[in-house]
Structures are given as structure tokens and as C-alpha cells.
């Protein structure tokens, strides 16, 4: 369903979803819920090469190009991190490399998760976004739409 939306629409949808929560507890419970929808990375892809560096929790991220769209799978050993990855995957999944490369990630700030974006090395959010964009860049040469 959400794949029929544009990337920006999905971001907007997430912003609206999170706007319903007035307190931190509901917000984080929802984030943890989202984590359960994450398309899980295949166990054989949980390799060190697929580890995103710079997270206090461990995050594995894989990407494949399918029909010119980037398909992400991922996992994390921490639930909040997993929820955050799920957020990102929901926004970026099955998009063209160009859409991903050009996407803004301001919605994270709007949602109230800005802290996870900080240059602090305990948080891996920016490292994750970087990694997703790097995948997209790598694929952009190969995609037939490119």
C-alpha cells in the first residue's frame, strides 16, 4: 500500500502518524511496533560487511536492485534502533536510486527523533542514512532508468 505513495508522501504519512502521540512513551512504543514490520535481512547476509559502522547497537543493512528499484532488508539487536531502521526502510524501500539520493530526511526532525541524527557516535542514524544513500549511488549506474 505505502509503495504506491511517493517518498515524500510516505514521509508525510509518518509525520502524521507520530503527530498523534503527545507523550514520549506512546511515541517510542510506536517506534518499537514499527520495528516489527521491518523486512528482515536474511541470516546469511548478517555479515560484518553489512554492519553499519558507528552505532552503539548493531545494525545490519542489505540492499538489492529489483526492477530498477532498491529493495532494503535490515535488522538490529536493539529495538529502538530497529524501529528507526524500519522508519527509514519504509521511506526508502522500493524507490529508484535517484529518489533515494535526492531525498531529504527532515521528517526525522519533525517526528521528534532528531537526537538520533546527532553526530554523536553512539547513534547510528546518520550512518544508516549514509549507507542507504551509498547503496543507491552504487546502483544508480546499473539501473536501466539511469
Amino acid at each position: 500500500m505505502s509503495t504506491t505513495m511517493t517518498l515524500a508522501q510516505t514521509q508525510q504519512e509518518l509525520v502524521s502518524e507520530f503527530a498523534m502521540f503527545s507523550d514520549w512513551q506512546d511515541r517510542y512504543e510506536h517506534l518499537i511496533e514499527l520495528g516489527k514490520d521491518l523486512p528482515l535481512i536474511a541470516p546469511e547476509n548478517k555479515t560484518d560487511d553489512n554492519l553499519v559502522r558507528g552505532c552503539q547497537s548493531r545494525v545490519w543493512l542489505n540492499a538489492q536492485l529489483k526492477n530498477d528499484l532498491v529493495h532494503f532488508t535490515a535488522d538490529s539487536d536493539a529495538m529502538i534502533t530497529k524501529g528507526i531502521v524500519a522508519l527509514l526502510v519504509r521511506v526508502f524501500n522500493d524507490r529508484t536510486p535517484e529518489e533515494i539520493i535526492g531525498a531529504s530526511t527532515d521528517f526525522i526532525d519533525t517526528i521528534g527523533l532528531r537526537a538520533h541524527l546527532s553526530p554523536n557516535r553512539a547513534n547510528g542514524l546518520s550512518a544508516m542514512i549514509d549507507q542507504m544513500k551509498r547503496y543507491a549511488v552504487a546502483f544508480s549506474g546499473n539501473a536501466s532508468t539511469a
Partner: protein
Amino acid sequence: MKTKDAPVTKAYDVERIRAQFPILRELVHGKPLVYFDNAATSQKPRRVIKAESAYYATINANVHRGVHTLSTKATEAQEAAREIVRRHINAQHAHEVIFTGGTTASLNLASFSLGQLVLKPGDEVLISGMEHHSNIVPWQLACERHGAKLKVIPITESGEWDLTQVPFSDETRVLAVSHVSNMLGTINPVKELIAEAKKRGIITAVDGAQAIAHLNVDVQDLGCDLYAFSGHKAYGPTGTGVLYGREELLERMPPWQGGGEMIDTVTFEKTTYAKLPFKFEAGTPNIAGIIGLGEAIRWMEDYDFAFAKASAEQGKSAFAAHEHMLLERATKELLTIDGLRIIGTAKEKVGVISFVIEGVHHYDLGTLLDQQGIAVRTGHHCTQPLMERFGVSGTTRASFTCFNTTEEVDTMVTATQKAVKMLR
């Protein structure tokens, strides 16, 4: 904030202490800040912050080489701080106190210079299994440079040195161990181990980063050759540190950094070095920071000793007693949480408590505690080998200080229970 139930703190007026830390007025996510990350860096009392700004506003100048009044005043203020440090750690001479940028810089100086002085291929450097990366990596690098080997004292299940398995050998040249573990809170029997090392003619260096704000450090009593600590962990400014060294050893140690201040004469062919402590203080020092560090130590002495005198246990640090009380309360209450395991159960501990909870990742817990205004540290605490020893990828660590309250401990326990419920 009131401490409802604190028998030990009868004479200890925690509110009076709290009033001196401006940061305690801050709200985090709309809640009063509960700062339990004191082992990472301590907060600064107003007197320390003011000492630095007053320096800049009234006497700022470069030290030691200027004839003019500001330079003289800045020099006197900096050297007064050196004397304060000397007295506080009971060094014999002020010139045995070398100012550095922090514990890490102190240990790099020590390892570089001692490496040149004593390490030869086949020699050994002995550290312990609970060292902070800052007391591991510099020695690894020194060993690499000189073909020496790193040996490690194993750690028991309770988080103490296994004294039955200390790998002393005829090749051991340096013993470098921490006074207090930043991750376990263990107070190590350094004095005993140093005595043993000295019998064997081994040079001894102590990483005192976690001791300086909690124990009465007496370098002569410990008998160590070198002692390192950071100002920022002892109510002082960032960018300050100390390496204490016994005069006789420092005289023999070659300099580490080259530059202004540390020389006597320079020609392009040959440079001769200045006397102690300047030989080890190349470049313009962190003058404001050093003055702030002096003030931090005076502040500690004023308050800690004042309370100590008023308390029953004459001579014992009042801060340490207060922190110990908080530790006992936190230990007892946290253990009521299902699946919680404390890592570091040594008999002698400072107010540091590290724990893991079954099925709960430390990053998640840290994040949810932060949402409730509570600052704890999570992760490997720069002690990866120790994490491996205990088979964990990280812990959640709460570390207490003079201004924390029993109520804050209770808040953390309740907040942890709430987080665990969300995460399971």
C-alpha cells in the same frame, strides 16, 4: 528535592552542594536532569566556571616568558594551581606535577617516554584486564615500537584482579594499572601490587582517572612512580590533566613533545631541555583550564573536608561516604528487577554501578531513561576487552557524585522498570 531516607547523610547537606552546580537547573525532555554520568565527566561548580572567566577577564596572558604584569599574574596563578595539586595528592615537589591535556595525554607521555627509557625487545609491560583503552593502546603502541610484549592480569568473576595469577616475570619493566575501574567501580589494591612490583625493580604507573574525585589520593603512600588523572572528571575544566612523576624518574625520562617552553637552548644541531616540570610541558599550556583545575581541587577540599569534619567518621571523605550510600541503595533496588545482573561486585567500590538486563539492549534502555530526564552511560565504556571478559556487548552504567540524591536513585529504578516493560 528532599532526601527522605538517608541515615548516612545526616550531616551532609546535599541541597547546599546542589546549589553550586548551575547545570542542575536544566530540564531534559521537560523533566529535572538526573545526572548519573559522572564517571564520564563531572559537572562543574560555579566557582570553577567563574575562575576561568575571571582569568580571561582580568589577567589573561601567556605564561613564563613575559616581563609584564599580566604575564606575571598569569604565571603566578598557574603555578599556584600546581602547588594546589601537589598538596592534594601529597607529591613531594611541585615540579613533580606535570600539566597535560588529560589522563590519555598523561598516559601517552608516560608510555612514550618510558618506552624510550627502558623498553627493549623481549621486555614486558604489565597491565590489567579492566583497563580503559587509554591505559591499553598507548602501551600497545610503545610495545610495538620497542619489540616488547603486553601482559595482562586476569579479572575474577566479581571484577577484581586475580592476584593469584599476576604474570610478573623477570622481563617485566613497567606495571600500568588503574586505581579504580570506570566500568566496574572496583577500587584496586594498587598499593599492595606496587609494593610487589618495586621489590622486582619494576616502574609503576597508575591510571587515577576514576579515583581522583572519590578517594584521598596520596602518591607517596601509594609508592607509585607515575600517577595520571584528568581535571574534567574531578569538577575541573575539560582539556586539563596531570601526570605526577617521582622526581628521580622524571629527571631520567626523555621528553615527549618538543617545542616552546620545554627547551633550555636550541640550535639546529642540538637542543637541550629545560628543567622539571617544563621539560614535559611543550607549548602554551591550557592556562585558564589549569587555574580552573586548581579551583576545582580547592572546592573539593573545602566541601569534602568540611563535611568530613562534621561527620562521625572523622577524616573519611564525606563525598565518598555519600556516594557509597547511593551505591548501596541503587544496588539493592536495581536487583529487584527481573533478569538484571550487576557486573562488578567487588568488595571495595566507588559509586559506579554497571548492569545488563536480560532481553533489554543497553542502547534502548539508555534512550528511554533519557526520555525520563536521566543521563546514564551505555556501551562498552572504552573497555572492550573487559566486555569480552564478561561476555556482554555493553552495559548501562550509573555513576554517582556528591550532588546526587537517594530520590534520584529511586527515580532511576522506577524509570528502568518502566523502560523494561516497554522493551519486553
